[in-house]
């Protein structure tokens, strides 16, 4: 039976692992979001990204986001796994899965999950270019 999965890992993410965590016979629809490393950012070519996290708090906030979704869309189940470390272009940084009895709640819950993750989860991304690097989100 699926358990709770809200984790920060330093290895490649298995999408199947995240889907398995939200499996269940009562669910008619499951929506997943996969965040991947793009090859360019604001006009500059990205060499790779570096992610770091305040892991215990990040996992706590991910779980709280899952609880928010269950409260706002009863009957849903959420799992989120975020990767940290050095990620090459094309690699997966985060996988979110939301299962629900019906598809509308699965879509809405999954959207909510990524928006909330980007607001409050203590994870940081540093973009590394050929000619320098910068922490994302610090402004001009």
């Amino acid at each position: 039976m699926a358990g709770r999965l809200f984790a920060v890992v330093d290895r490649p993410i298995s999408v199947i692992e995240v889907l398995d965590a939200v499996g269940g016979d009562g669910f008619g629809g499951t929506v997943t979001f996969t965040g991947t490393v793009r090859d360019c950012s604001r006009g500059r070519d990205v060499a790779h990204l570096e992610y770091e996290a305040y892991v215990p708090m990040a996992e706590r906030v991910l779980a709280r986001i899952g609880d928010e979704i269950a409260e706002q869309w009863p009957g849903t189940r959420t799992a989120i796994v975020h990767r940290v470390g050095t990620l090459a272009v094309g690699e997966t940084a985060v996988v979110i899965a939301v299962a629900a009895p019906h598809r509308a709640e699965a879509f809405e819950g999954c959207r909510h999950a990524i928006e909330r993750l980007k607001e409050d989860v203590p994870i940081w991304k540093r973009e590394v270019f050929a000619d320098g690097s910068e922490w994302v989100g610090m402004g001009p």
Partner: protein
Amino acid sequence: MHVRVLYFAIVRDRLGGVSEEALELDEGATVADLSAALEARHPALSGLLSKVRFAVDEAFAGADAPLRDGCEVALIPPVSGG
């Protein structure tokens, strides 16, 4: 009271790679008191402290939040997960 302060990302970089330190504060100190102490102790953080949020024992806390002996405080610069 003794508090443990954690530094991440751009904050850690500004401090030359220091990721944590122990600080002593007066009884009854708040997050705002800690912030002021950090500003005095680390000039390299000037301008950055106004952009960070504070977390006390893994929960976001406002300026007036009280600290306890042994608590863990993290400086949370703008997050960029996902």
